[in-house]
């Protein structure tokens, strides 16, 4: 009672990376990003959809993505996000770190 529910994230910061990766393929609005992540993970990755928006704000504040008002495929007004140059660099850094981390974990687990 009276406590905020804990965020259920297996790998902290992984959401940022996923968003950046998604946006590196094409510009999307928020809902599109969620759909893309879920579809491309064959629904294995379930994002708490609400968490996307604080994450987007955070990325924008850091200057890694840029949001602009545009129109979606079914003609609704939405904020379309695209990755910036700094964002691509950040994505490269995070991808490297992620790969190293998962490899290390896999080695420990003996599943390599």
């Amino acid at each position: 009672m009276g406590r905020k529910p804990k965020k259920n994230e297996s790998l902290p910061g992984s959401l940022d990376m996923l968003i950046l990766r998604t946006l590196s393929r094409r510009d999307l609005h928020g809902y599109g990003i969620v759909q893309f992540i879920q579809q491309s993970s064959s629904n294995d990755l379930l994002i708490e959809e609400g968490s996307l928006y604080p994450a987007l704000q955070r990325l924008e504040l850091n200057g890694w993505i840029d949001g602009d008002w545009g129109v979606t495929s079914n003609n609704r007004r939405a904020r379309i996000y695209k990755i910036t140059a700094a964002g691509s660099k950040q994505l490269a850094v995070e991808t490297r770190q992620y790969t190293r981390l998962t490899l290390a974990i896999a080695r420990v687990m003996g599943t390599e």
Partner: protein
Amino acid sequence: MLLRRLRYWMASARSAESLREEMELHLAEKAAELQADGMTPDRARAEAHRRFGNAGLKREESRELWMTRFWSELSQDIRYGWRTIAANKALSALVVLSLALGIGANTAIYSLMESILMRSLPVADPESLVVLNWRSQPPQNANRQWVHVVHGLQGVFWPGDKGAMISGIFPYGAFETLRADNPAFSTIFGYVNGRSRNLTVRGQSITANSEFVTGEYFRGLAVSPAAGRMITAEDDRPGAPPVAVVSFAASQSRFGGPSSAIGQSILVDKVPVTVIGVAPPEFFGVDPAMAPDLYLPLRTNVLLDGAATERLFSDGNFYWLEMMGRLRPGITMAQAQAALAPRFHQWVAATATTDGERANLPALMLNPGAAGLGSLRREYSKPLYVLLAMVALILAITCANIANLLLARASARRREMAVRLSLGAGRLRVVRQLLTESVMLASLGGALGVLFAIWGVRSLTFLFSRGQENFTLHAELNWHVLGVTAALSVVCGLLFGLVPAIQSTRPDVMPALKNGRGGGARHRAQNVLVVAQIAISFLILVAAGLFVRTLENLHSVPLGYARENILLFSLNASQAGHRQSELPAFYADLRRRFESIPGISSATLCRSSIISSGRAGGAIQGAMKIGAVTIDGARTLGAGPRFFTTMQIPILAGREIDDRDQPGSTSVAVISERLARTYFGNDNPLGRRIALPDEKRELEIIGVSANLRSGSLKSNEGGNPMAVFVALSQFSADRVTYALRTAGDPLRYAGNVRELVREADSTLPVTNIVTQAAEIDRSINREIIFAKLCTGFALLALLMASVGLYGTMSYSVTRQFGEIGIRMALGAPRGAMVWMVLRRVLLLAAAGLAISVPAALIASRLVKSFLFQTQPNDPRTLALAGVVLLSAAILAGYAPARRASRIDPLVALRHD
């Protein structure tokens, strides 16, 4: 980076809006997708929301990114706080008002006290200044014993311990002796209050306060001029050209600025004087109660007051000059005392000529002079401490009240808090919200308190100033005090806001949610607070009662002369340049003119108003004799024609003083009945004679008047109705006081009076225009202040205690809502419910009284010296205070009691 953040911050309102839009779009698309999968629209929307999670929290998390959380939450808290405050207007107003009054009253009283008691003179190194006083030997028997070496005096005495007399006036010879080769003082200087003078600047006459100072005065005080130069030893010698230093304020109001005052020729009582300098703006002389407009060299008094004044400088038995010294560096006051006391003793012993005079010689006594002279301090320091103690009690009540109200409010909001917590609000966040509200209330109260304090200082100064002519105390708001009191109240608000806040946000919100009612501990705290409030209120009520009784007693002192419908004012034609020989005719003529004003039934003149006849000194100094018998302790009052008619003092035998009694004719006197009885027994005193002490003349008794009270209402001497009235015209009087008997409000005639005086002499100012009633009240100003202030305080305390009681009872009725409902459903009559509540009220009041009555009995002894014909344990006052308090308590408890009796059992039982 910073720029980006700033941009976000600026656009925060827009961002919040667009974020919401984005989220809504998300939800709509999700719902649409789910619907496409075959869900009903309603379920689809609900499922979309479920998957999205807590949208509000997410929005907040986002916002947190661009605004630092603190500020956004603070503004939210403040906005919410405003709403709560506005929603509970009555309660909020009570809290704010209590705080404001508590802070304001404390600050005002303390500021005044500080300016009277503790402020240093605005001069360099005030700590090294020393005031010279002397004290008489404590008398052997209980009687007050005169210091016989003092043959004449001009100044004041005040009582020291063990019946000794203390004074600060010395003969000029003592000053010269101490000035010559002084081992302890670097400078010693003298000064005399020069009283009010007729000052003419560029043809315009006003009355100005003057101070005679010796040549060392300004050097000793280390005061440098704002313009020109100060008075030096060169100016203060016989035959020096008359010069003056004017105060900064006077230079501005009368000369158009300090620099243009220099070199101006002015008339002081028709004597031409050159202005040589202007005192700095902050300098007010050596007595905070006086602020001279004009500083004149001491020797100038010979020019102003006539050649007879010359005697003052040579007479070793005439006491008139006040003195201060500046200690040499490294010399302590005790060392100075040790060095100077023998020198003074040696000098004063030489002035004593008889054994009687040698028996009780004055002894020199040094006092710190940093704060200047203490004429006000002597009169008001103890009263101010009493007032301060009362105000501190008020502050205690205030704090208790705030605590009580906040506790009650917290209890009432327990449920709200529980709801907020269960909806997922952070606990710290809720506590912070409550604290913000407390601080907001406290700040509002504090701000209002400042305004109240400013107003309070002004009106208090005004109240105190009524006692004195030309009262120029510079009381200012003391910001330190304001800070301390404000901090105290805010801390109190915080503390009592915090405790319930923490309690009501305890993790287990379920019980609160279920029954919505608080526990017992806070209830007890409220009871304790209420009892304390009642106890303190009773103390203040008793004090107020005692002071009001004192004032009543003073007002009912039989005067023996008319109090109402008399206008008094003073003229000093001598200062306006009229020759001594012309004065009686001039004054007599004016008197006749005043009498011709329509609405004036009679007019007279006297030496001073009857009430101040003690202060002003009689027309005759020394003892009079009837035959060989010395008249002991009679007052002499100088009176003009129609004095007894105007003052409505009955003449029992003979006639009153009238126009026949001229300067050249037989000197006459009217004596009071008591005097006649004491010295003539049953003989007829008419035609008998009274011998004057100094003069060759004798007074012929022409009438006997009824007894009257001359002099102060308080003193026992004033109660002595032995009086000798002499014809004013037959004795020299420079300054006279006129008394006019008027129809209706006396002050309405002030205009006519001024006009008539202007016609007679345009350079003669009319001073001291006052009604007889006000003049009498002036002599009991302290008692009036006490009665007024304490009544105010008592009302305030009573009000606060009632509010506290009302709050507690209201809360308790709300808490017992269900219980009362059940009782009534079971057949309890409505009257029983009223009684149930009132019984608790009475119990609380009784507990308060039980603590307070003994406390009041002890505490009231402390104010004994301020009471007049009233015992500190006056049972009537105690009973009255008790009755008032109980009535107020019942009144405060009645509204909640009535509410309890109106509870509809059905509603109460259904209520959760």
